[in-house]
């Protein structure tokens, strides 16, 4: 039985906790959150609660620590957990700053423990199915990729998201998923050019990339007030095209007369978070390598940081020689 501690009981912490609950050979014994009020979450699930990660590790001696903290806190929590001899899962992005990401990579490599960054997009059925179709040759060689990811502008109670120092900003925090998808499809990029407008309560970035294979990609990310979370992609190849748009695929839909609001859902039994957690847990049991490697997480961040650099300098960023 793997003993697990989940650190950080924000939205992601709860998602991860639900995923662990379904894994029969793992047992979450405690939750950690600096906010003492979160002890109510722990009580709800019948778990022990700590406000301090070191106390938790000393008392619980877990096999696995799952870090769901705000990005700027990733490095220190990961280093602490690895030093205590635990296997560690950590929410994306690996870090917001390059030097922190390198430090996490070094700690992971030295530790000899399993380490995986939660690039959950790999476990999203739409994305993994599309990737498999591409691998099967269904559309030939992919030449042009378009991705979009749109969400509501982070509200003040989740303040750290809109604090670029902490989260890395929209490009690092949210577009990271599409950078991972592209890395998974193509490997490394040659160059990036990005434009961004972050003003008037809107954060919108349009990124253009070129890969070594010659393929190009256009990524759109935006945070606008009140936007529902939507995402999609289009892969155009030498022999065909694959497209997905979350706004067009809502198998479940409701409109309540008096509430005047309509909403749609796409229910799934094995959520991407469950699949991700299950994969990591299996890697520990089987002593196998997670499909998302620490180097993948590093390279993904590098792409996002290069895009950020381009938006700041107005220049095309060549990836060779770009050091975060």
């Amino acid at each position: 039985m793997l003993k697990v501690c989940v650190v950080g009981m924000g939205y992601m912490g709860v998602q991860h906790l639900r995923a662990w609950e379904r894994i029969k050979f793992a047992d979450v014994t405690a939750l950690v959150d600096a906010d003492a009020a979160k002890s109510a979450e722990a009580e709800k699930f019948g778990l022990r609660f700590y406000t301090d990660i070191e106390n938790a590790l000393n008392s619980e001696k877990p096999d696995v620590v799952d870090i769901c903290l705000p990005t700027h806190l990733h490095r220190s929590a990961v280093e602490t957990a690895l030093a205590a001899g635990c296997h560690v899962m950590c929410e994306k992005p690996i870090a917001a700053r390059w030097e922190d990401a390198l430090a996490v990579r070094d700690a992971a490599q030295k530790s000899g423990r399993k380490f995986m960054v939660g690039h959950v997009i790999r476990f999203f059925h739409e994305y993994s199915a599309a990737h498999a179709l591409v691998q099967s040759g269904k559309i030939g060689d992919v030449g042009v990729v378009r991705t979009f990811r749109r969400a509501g502008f982070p509200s003040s109670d989740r303040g750290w998201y809109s604090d670029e120092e902490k989260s890395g900003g929209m490009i690092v925090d949210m577009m990271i998923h599409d950078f991972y998808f592209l890395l998974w499809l193509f490997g490394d990029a040659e160059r990036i050019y990005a434009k961004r407008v972050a003003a008037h309560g809107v954060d919108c970035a349009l990124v253009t990339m070129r890969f070594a294979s010659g393929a190009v990609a256009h990524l759109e990310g935006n945070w606008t007030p009140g936007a529902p979370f939507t995402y999609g992609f289009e892969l155009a190849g030498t022999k065909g095209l694959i497209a997905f748009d979350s706004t067009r695929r809502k198998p479940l839909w409701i409109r309540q007369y008096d509430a005047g609001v309509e909403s749609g859902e796409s229910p799934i039994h094995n959520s991407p978070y469950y699949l991700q957690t299950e994969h990591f847990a299996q890697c520990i049991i089987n002593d196998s390598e997670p499909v998302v490697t620490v180097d993948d997480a590093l390279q993904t961040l590098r792409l996002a940081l290069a895009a950020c650099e381009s938006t700041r300098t107005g220049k095309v960023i060549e990836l060779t020689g770009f050091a975060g």
Partner: protein
Amino acid sequence: MIRAAILSFAHLHANSYAQCLHRHSGIEFCAVYDEDSACGGEQAQRYGAKFYQDAMELLRGEKPDFAIVCAENVRHCNLVLACAEAGVHCMCEKPIATTVGDANEMIKACTDAGVHLMTCFPVRYSPPVVRFREMVRGGRAGLPLAASCTNHGRMPPGWFLNKELAGGGAVIDHTVHVADLLRWILDREAVRVYAEVGHGLLHPGLGIDDVGLLTIEYEDGFFATLDTSWSRPAIFPTWGDVTIRMTGTDGVLQVDAFQQELEVYSDRDGRAEWQHWGENIDMLMIDDFVNHLLRNEPPAITGEDGLRALETALCAYQSAKTNKPVDINDIRC
């Protein structure tokens, strides 16, 4: 009765223009010129028009009120100059020309001769686009900040793939519609373009560009990206699209100009198709040209409009050579 001719059926759109001229109750479709007498002759016969194998002979002989130039891109210039010389008003298929020099020559010749020159940008007449423009300019989304645009297509046939005749591939073919729309909607000039261009990226061995991802920057900081790629596979249910998704300070506005479609699944024809039932924008455009002509007003879309859109495409090609953004001014010299 306004008398009209078509100069060359090389461009796919000529067929649609011909049908529009034929159906328009105020227009007599009187003559056809084409280099290929078999093709041209057949078209002429279909519409009860007279066929000429020489453009100047047609212009001087028939003296039409106006002509629509639908030749291969490189040949637009000489045909428009011929119209100017013969005193015939002119609609010219996009892109107006393949070089800035040719476009300038065409504009000057028509101005000096006192003939109208309209660049064919029919998407300006798409009702969804017209409404989109109204809403943007009416401030429904506040101040425009950025736009993500597409003008996708399938790989076209024939001369479109020949640089000597087309001047380029997907980038010159599919930059100009949206570059013109953005200029028309925003009343803003593009100042810089960055482009990633792919040659034979989706059609191996093509020998011409079939992929273009442009980033167009405007004088006040507004920016737009534009996907010009011939990325719809042959089996795609429709030819392509024109879409603009604009983020503003107060909202997001999106238009998909050709989305008024039926989904048609035909075993008889062995394919799925999205068939457009929306307004015939070619007819609206031709009708508008004629109305401006009759009122002796300059056309709604001028030669200069065509030139500005062309500059964006040429700037994209220049950018792709250097992998750097290029100032539009550098293209103008």
